[in-house]
Structure formats: structure tokens, C-alpha cells
């Protein structure tokens, strides 16, 4: 009998899979998250729907249908992105375990970011999909018109998840210099969701605030994917969104690479 071929050697793929697998062990936790998710979705939907209605059916380019899509797609994505700023890496830096990570022949950044993305991807099934289903059932939410738009939307979604976890990674690396990173995490938690369009679409912001938001990677994490996924932004606009997201992804990954290198040097200087 011929021996079986060796398993995929690529460690980075393994990290992704590990992230996905790690989350499947707690069905009750997933259900609990869904209940919380649905509640917030209903509340958000109610107020945002009323806002559109009281503006005569159109608010900053949103109709009742696209606003409902905004709400429920946002809720669906919530399990896959990270708006609270904490991470495994942060804990490992605090405890000093990160020194072990640097000893491994894999990129620390890639290992952590890919694992987190894996976890985020897993959450799409038990949390993301049901949220969308609920949204479709309780409201008249808009969805993309054709397969091409769906594909673009999905791509935007995946890039958005990547941007989120890559950014949190950079936040975590500040731990190489700061003794107490909890303050930074709280700061991140406060502003990230807000500028990503978690509670209100950023297009509702006054101009100066909108400009400020667009100067951050946050909109690429949620607002832009929702724009494309709901079919509100199509064609050239959608491709532009994707471009913006990829740009931010590159910037954030680059920043993470630099901080990791500098952090490693600092650890070595300090003696681990």
C-alpha cells in the first residue's frame, strides 16, 4: 500500500485552521453571542429605521432597506472583527511568554494575525449568517443584486476582517514598550467601533468628523465592507473601496512588521 502523502507543510495555513478549530468547542457561548447580537440588532434597527423615516425616507444616502442592511450586516460582522482591543499577544507580552514566540521559526506577526483571522472567519458561520437571516426575516434589508456584487462583497468582508486583526496586532505590540497596555486597549475599544461605523454609518458624521474617520483604518474594517456587501456601493465605487481597504491592510501590516522587529530588539536588549 502506498504511504499517504505528508500533510500540508505550510505552518501559516495551520495557524489559520487552528484559529478556526479553536472556536468550535463552545456551542453555548456561540448561542449566547447570537442572543446578545440579535438584541442589539433589533434595538439598533429600531432607532436607525426611525431616523430614516423621520428624515423622509432617506438619510445621508440610506433608504430604509439599506439602513437595515447596515444594521444587520454590522451585527453579523461583529463576531469576526475585534473592536475591544485585547488579544492573545497582549496577554503573552504581559506575561513574558512572547519570548517563546520569537524562538519559533515562523513570523510572530503572521502567526498571531492569521490565527485571529481564522477565529474571525469561523465566527461568520454561527454568528454572521444567523444575523443576516434574522435581518432578512425582521426587516426588508437590501442585498447585492448579482453574483459579481456578492463576490466583491465577500472579498471586501474578508479584507475588512484582516485589517481589523492586523490593526489590533499593532496595538498589542505597544506592549513591548508600555508596561500597562490596558489604557491603550480601552482607548482602542472606545474609538474603533465608533469610527468603523458600528453604531451609526460614518456618512452621518458632520464633514470634519467624516474626514477624520477616513484618515484611520477603522472604516475599512466594517463600514466599507458593509457598503459593498449591501449593494449600496457597486461597480467602480466598490472596486475603489477594495483598493482603500487593501491600502490600509498594507500600511497596518507594514507598521506591525516594524513594531515587531523593534520590539524583538528591545526584548533582546532587556534580556527577554
Amino acid at each position, binding site marked *: 500500500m502506498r504511504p499517504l502523502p505528508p500533510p500540508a507543510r505550510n505552518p501559516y495555513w495551520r495557524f489559520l485552521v487552528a484559529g478556526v478549530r479553536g472556536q468550535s468547542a463552545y456551542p453555548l457561548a456561540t448561542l449566547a453571542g447570537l442572543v446578545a447580537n440579535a438584541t442589539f440588532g433589533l434595538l439598533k434597527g*429600531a432607532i436607525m429605521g426611525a431616523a430614516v423615516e423621520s428624515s423622509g425616507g432617506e438619510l445621508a444616502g440610506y433608504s430604509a432597506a439599506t439602513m437595515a442592511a447596515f444594521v444587520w450586516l454590522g451585527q453579523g460582522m461583529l463576531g469576526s472583527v475585534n473592536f475591544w482591543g485585547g488579544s492573545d499577544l497582549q496577554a503573552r507580552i504581559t506575561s513574558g511568554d512572547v519570548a517563546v514566540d520569537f524562538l519559533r521559526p515562523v513570523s510572530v506577526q503572521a502567526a498571531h494575525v492569521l490565527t485571529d483571522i481564522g477565529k474571525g472567519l469561523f465566527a461568520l458561520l454561527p454568528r454572521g449568517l444567523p444575523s443576516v437571516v434574522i435581518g432578512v426575516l425582521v426587516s426588508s434589508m437590501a442585498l447585492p443584486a448579482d453574483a459579481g456584487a456578492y463576490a466583491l462583497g465577500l472579498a471586501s468582508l474578508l479584507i475588512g476582517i484582516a485589517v481589523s486583526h492586523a490593526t489590533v496586532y499593532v496595538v498589542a505590540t505597544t506592549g513591548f514598550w508600555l508596561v500597562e497596555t490596558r489604557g491603550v486597549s480601552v482607548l482602542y475599544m472606545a474609538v474603533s467601533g465608533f469610527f468603523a461605523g458600528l453604531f451609526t454609518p460614518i456618512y452621518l458624521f458632520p464633514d470634519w468628523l467624516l474626514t477624520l474617520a477616513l484618515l484611520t483604518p477603522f472604516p475599512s474594517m466594517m463600514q466599507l465592507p458593509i457598503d459593498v456587501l449591501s449593494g449600496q456601493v457597486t461597480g467602480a465605487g466598490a472596486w475603489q473601496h477594495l483598493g482603500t481597504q487593501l491600502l490600509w491592510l498594507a500600511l497596518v501590516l507594514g507598521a506591525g512588521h516594524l513594531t515587531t522587529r523593534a520590539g524583538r530588539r528591545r526584548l533582546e536588549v532587556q534580556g527577554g
Partner: protein
Amino acid sequence: MRNALRAYRVVLASRARSQASHRASFRMDLVGALLVGLIEFTEIWVLYTASDQIGGFTLTQIMLVFGLSDLAFSLADLVAGHCDNLPRYVRAGTLDVFFLRPQAVLAQLVTSDLSLRRIGRCLVGATALTVALVLNDIDWGIGTIGLLALALACGFVIFTAQFVTAAGLQFFLVNGAEMTNAFVYGGRYAATQSATVWPRGLLVVFGAIFPVAFAAYLPVVTLLGTPGVAGLPAWLGWCAPVAACWAVVVAAVCWRWGLRHYRGAGG
């Protein structure tokens, strides 16, 4: 009686001292809490600026709802917010230590910490409330002050009770802790809204089961005379104490249930 209280006072005092002694991180926590509250207000501000009135409320009017409910919530969070540590205590087995002391377990849980840093959050609510009281056209009098004080007190009780309810349910949920976020933090969010926008389901949940609508919205409707939910009397704001009592009953039941379950007494 005085001796019993003295024990709680001593624990709280030492916790407060220990927190205040970590100067730098304490200050950072305060700022962080302040920021979170500020962002929460900004969300409402953005919404009500983009669209003149929602659910019959303008920005200045909803500020009153926000101020009242957020202040009540942050005070409750200060006193009982750390009750969400319970699942951690249960998993580590450290909850058992509470049974070894001659004090009620719930009292020990509530007094186990004092999250002083959440004072930062209270400032936001207090400020919004003050500004709203100035900006709005209010008929000042004994009744008004009474209603406001009543709303704040009852809101505090309702939110605190909900923290306890969540803790009691944690005995059953352990891994599903997030489910209680739906009514604890969902309730906070709901309390800052105008209930006229709610569909029937939300009205039942946040008007009756977890009656956060009585913390700010209904009292403000009574106070300002803004259009309320169709079919509900305008004086409903005065019934906040009823809602508070109900919240306390729910909390007591859930806590006892949970404790019985933990001790293996039928459940």
C-alpha cells in the same frame, strides 16, 4: 448590625485605597471610562444632528433621556458592575471561599470590589443631564425635582438589579455568559432611546421584563410632555418605583435559583 456593616465598609475601603494607590493606571482608567461615555454620547449626537427628530424627540430632549439613564447606569456599574466576575470565581473555585464567611454570599460579591475608575463614566452622564436640564424648557417645581430624583433612584435600582440578575443566571450559563449582555448592556442602550421607535417585541422586553424604559424615557415623557408610546398614559413615569420593585424581585429570584443550583440543591 453596626458590626456587620463595618465588615463591608472595611473591605470597600481597602479596595478603594488599593485602587487609588496605583496612581498612573488609575488615572488612565478614569480617562478611558470618560472616553467611552463620551463616544456613547457622540453616537446619539451624530444621529440626532443628522436627523432633526427621531421618535418624537429632538437632540436636547434625548439628551435628558441619555443623561438620566447613563448616570443611573454608571452609578450602578460602579457599585455592582464587577458582579460579572462571577463566572471566573465559579470556574476557579474561589466562590467557595464566600461560603466560609459569616456573610451573605451576594453581599460579599457586590462588596468584593469598587470599580472607582467607573466614576469617569458617571461624569459624562452627569454632565449631559445638567446641560439637558438647562437647555430644555422645564417647568421647575417640587413635582419636577421629585420626578427627576425618583427616576434617577429607580434607574439606579433597576440597573443594579439587572447586574445581580445576570450574576444569578451565570450559575447556569457559565460559558454562555454573553447572553446576559443582551439585557444588561442592551438595556443600557435601550434606556437611552425613545421607546416610540420600538416594535412590540422590544416594548415588552425593555418596557416590562427588563423595565429600563422606566429609568429615563417614561419619566422624561411625563416631565416634558413629549409624545409617548401610543396607548400608554402620560403619567407612567411616576410608576418607576413599580418597575424598580419588579427588577428587584427578578434579581432576587435569579440569584437564589442560581445559588441553589450551584450548591446542588435541586437544580
